[in-house]
C-alpha cells in the first residue's frame, strides 16, 4: 500500500495538474480505453481538477459491457442445466441477458458460483467428477493467460468435465475501429496498463503512426492517469504521435512473453462481436481446434438463440466515446443500476455505473440548468 500511496499524493497530483495547465493551449479530447481508469477518474474526481480544455472520454474497455447479448444468453442457457456448475467472476452475474441475469438463474435453482480465478473452476471440476463445470471466460488480454492456463491444466490432467464459454476480446482492434469511424473525435489514447502488462505495446506503434494519435500506456492511480494525460497533451501540443509508457514500473515493451505464448498455444484470433459496437474483425479469441473439447459452445448444443435488443439507450455511443453517460435522457431516471437499460450501467467498470455512483448529482445539476435554460428561452 505504501507503494500505492505514492501514486495518490495530493501534492504530486496538484503539481501534475499545474504542468498540464501550463502546456495546454487548446482543447484536446483524450480517451481512456480501460473501464478501470474511467472508474478511477470519476472516483477520484480527476475530471474535476483538469483544465477545462482537456476532455476525457470513456472507451470500450469494460469486458462486462462489451460481452455480446448472445454470449450472456448462452451463459444463462448453460447455467440452467442441472448437470452444470456455472462459474464466473462476480461482475457478470448481474448483467442482463434478453430476459434474465445469472442471479435470477441462481435463485431459480441453477448452480451458479462466483470464483476469483478460472483455476478455482478447474479445482471444482476435480472435486465434482459427476458434474460439468463451465467457466465464463470473458475479458481482454488481461484475463486471457489465466483462462488459457485453466484449459491447459484441464487438458494435461485429462479432465473431461470442464469447459469454458469464451468471449474474449482484444483491445488494439477496437482502438483502430474507433479511429476509423467517420464520427471519431478521439485525438489521443491512454492505453490500458493491465492489457499492456501482458501484451506489451509493440502492436500500438502502427496504430499511432497510421492514425497519427499519441498513445500513452497508463496505470490506474490518480498520479498515473495525470502523468498519462500530461504525456499525451505534450505530444498533441507538439504535433507528435508516438507510443510512450507511463506505467513503466509494471509494463515492458515486449510485455509478458510466457503469458503471450500460453495464449497462442490455447487460443487463436477470431472475429468478435462487441456489445453496443458490432462485429470487429480479428478482435477476439477462440479456442484452437485441438482444444475444442473444452469449448462449452461445442459441448452444449444451444442452437440458434433469439436475442432481443431494443435500441432504447445510448450505451453503444458511450462505449465509442461519442456520448457521455449524463448526456442520455434516461440516465439516472429510467436507467439506474437497479433498473439498467444497458450493460454500461450494470458493470462496476461501466462508464454509466461510474457516473451514477460518483457524479449523479452533477448530472442532475446539468439537467436542471438545461431545463431552466429551456424554460427561460420559452
Amino acid at each position: 500500500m505504501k507503494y500505492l500511496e505514492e501514486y495518490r499524493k495530493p501534492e504530486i497530483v496538484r503539481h501534475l495538474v499545474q504542468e498540464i495547465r501550463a502546456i495546454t493551449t487548446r482543447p484536446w479530447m483524450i480517451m481512456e480505453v480501460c473501464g478501470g481508469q474511467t472508474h478511477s477518474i470519476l472516483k477520484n474526481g480527476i475530471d474535476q481538477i483538469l483544465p477545462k480544455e482537456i476532455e476525457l472520454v470513456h472507451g470500450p474497455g469494460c469486458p462486462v459491457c462489451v460481452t455480446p447479448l448472445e454470449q450472456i444468453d448462452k451463459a444463462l442457457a448453460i447455467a440452467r442445466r442441472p448437470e452444470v456448475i456455472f462459474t464466473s467472476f462476480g461482475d457478470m452475474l448481474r448483467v442482463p441477458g434478453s430476459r434474465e441475469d445469472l442471479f435470477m438463474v441462481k435463485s431459480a435453482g441453477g448452480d451458479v458460483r462466483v470464483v476469483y480465478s478460472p483455476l478455482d473452476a478447474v479445482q471444482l471440476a476435480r472435486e465434482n467428477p459427476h458434474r460439468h463445470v463451465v467457466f465464463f471466460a470473458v475479458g481482454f488480454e488481461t484475463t486471457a493467460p489465466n483462462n488459457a492456463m485453466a484449459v491447459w491444466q484441464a487438458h494435461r490432467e485429462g479432465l473431461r468435465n470442464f469447459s469454458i464459454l469464451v468471449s474474449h476480446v482484444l483491445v488494439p482492434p477496437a482502438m483502430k475501429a474507433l479511429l476509423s469511424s467517420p464520427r471519431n473525435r478521439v485525438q489521443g489514447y491512454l492505453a490500458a496498463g493491465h492489457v499492456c502488462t501482458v501484451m506489451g505495446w509493440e502492436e500500438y506503434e502502427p496504430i499511432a503512426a497510421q492514425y497519427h494519435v499519441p498513445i500513452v500506456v497508463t496505470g490506474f492511480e490518480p498520479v498515473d492517469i495525470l502523468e498519462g494525460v500530461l504525456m499525451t497533451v505534450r505530444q498533441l501540443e507538439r504535433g507528435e504521435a508516438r507510443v510512450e509508457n507511463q506505467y513503466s514500473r509494471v509494463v515492458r515493451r515486449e510485455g509478458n512473453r510466457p503469458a503471450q505464448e500460453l495464449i497462442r498455444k490455447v487460443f487463436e484470433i477470431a472475429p468478435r462481436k462487441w456489445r453496443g459496437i458490432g462485429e470487429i474483425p480479428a478482435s477476439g479469441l477462440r479456442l484452437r481446434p485441438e482444444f475444442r473439447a473444452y469449448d462449452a459452445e461445442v459441448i452444449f448444443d444451444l442452437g440458434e438463440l433469439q436475442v432481443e435488443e431494443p435500441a432504447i439507450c445510448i450505451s453503444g455511443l458511450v462505449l465509442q466515446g461519442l456520448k457521455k453517460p449524463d448526456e442520455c435522457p434516461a440516465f439516472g431516471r429510467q436507467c439506474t443500476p437497479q433498473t439498467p437499460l444497458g450493460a454500461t450501467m450494470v458493470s462496476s467498470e461501466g462508464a454509466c455505473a461510474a457516473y451514477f455512483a460518483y457524479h449523479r448529482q452533477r448530472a442532475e445539476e446539468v439537467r436542471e440548468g438545461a431545463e431552466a435554460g429551456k424554460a427561460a428561452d420559452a
Partner: protein
Amino acid sequence: MSEFNLQCPLPISQHDTIQLGHGSGGKMMNDLIARLFLWAFENPYLNKRDDQAVVEINGVRLAVSTDSFVVDPIFFPGGDIGELAVYGTVNDVCMSGGRPLFLAASVILEEGFPLADLRRVVESMAAAARRTGVMIVTGDTKVVNKGKGDKIFINTTGIGVVEHPWQISAGLIRPGDLVLLSGSLGDHGIAILSRREGLAFETPVTSDTAPLHELVAAVVQAGGEAVHALRDPTRGGLAATLNEFAATAQVGIRIREDRIPLKPAVAGACEILGLDPLYVANEGKLVAVVAAARAQEVLRVMRAHPLGREAALIGEVVADRPGLVTMQTRLGSWRMVDMLVGEQLPRIC
C-alpha cells in the same frame, strides 16, 4: 468493421423471486423492506427505521431488536457465528443508548452438523453473553434436512432498558451535526472473504467483532441529548449507514476521505479485489451523529475506550441536497457515496 449497430439489453427491473441482493444491506434490501414489510406492518415504531425499537411500558422504556446470523464460514479469523449472534444483537439494542439485559436465541441446525462444532458455537455464545452482561433467557432449536440449511443459522432477539431520558434516532439528525466513526473500516468483511475464498494476504485481517455496549454508554454519558443517532455499520458498510441516515432525516451528509480510518491490510485487500471499503461490513464499529457543540467531547471519550482508539470525526450534516451523501476525495474533488444496489461484486480485471 461493420457499421456501428447500437444495441442495448432489455431492462430487468422487476424480480419475481428473492435474489441474494435482497439481503445485501443495499438498495434492493431497502426497497424490499419499504415496499413489503414496512407497508404491511406499518406502525410508528417501525416507521422510524432504526435498528431497534424503543417501546414504553408502564413508564419503563425498553429497547428491542432482533437479528439473524447466517455467516459462512461459521468460524473465521477473529470470531465465530456464536459470538457474532450475541454481539450483533447486543450492539443493535445499545445503539438506542439502552442497556442490554436479556436475549432469546433460536438455532436452526442442518442435519449432519457436527456436535463438536455446535458445542464450540454455544460456548462462544455463553462467553459473549457473560462479557456483555446479558442472559440468554429463552430459545428454540430446530433441525432441517441435510441440504435445506447451511450448517447453522442463529437468530437472537434482545431486550434492554433505556435509562437515560433522551431520544436517539436517525430522524433526529439535524444540519450542523458532526459525524463520528469509532474506528477503521472493513475488517470483518475482508476477514470473512479471505477465509471463505481461501485468499491469503501479507498481513492477515481479523474480524473486528466486538460488543459496543460500554463504548455506547460512554458516548451517551458524554454527549447526552447532543447524541442524535447511533448505528453500527454492518452489512452495506459505512456507505449504507450514512445513506440511511440521510434518507431518514432528509439531510445531506458530507464526509472526508482523508479522515476515514482504514488498516493498510484492509485497504490492500480491497484494492486487489476491487472492493470499496466504504461498503464492506463491520461488526465492532459505530457511527455517532452528534450536535457540533458536544462532538469533540464525545470524540475524546470514544478515543479513551479500547474499542474507539482510532475514532475520527469524518464529516458533517448539511441542509442542502437532502438524502445525498458526498465525500471530498484526498485530491480535494467531490464525489457521491451512493448506496449499492445489491452485493459488492469483485471485479474481473
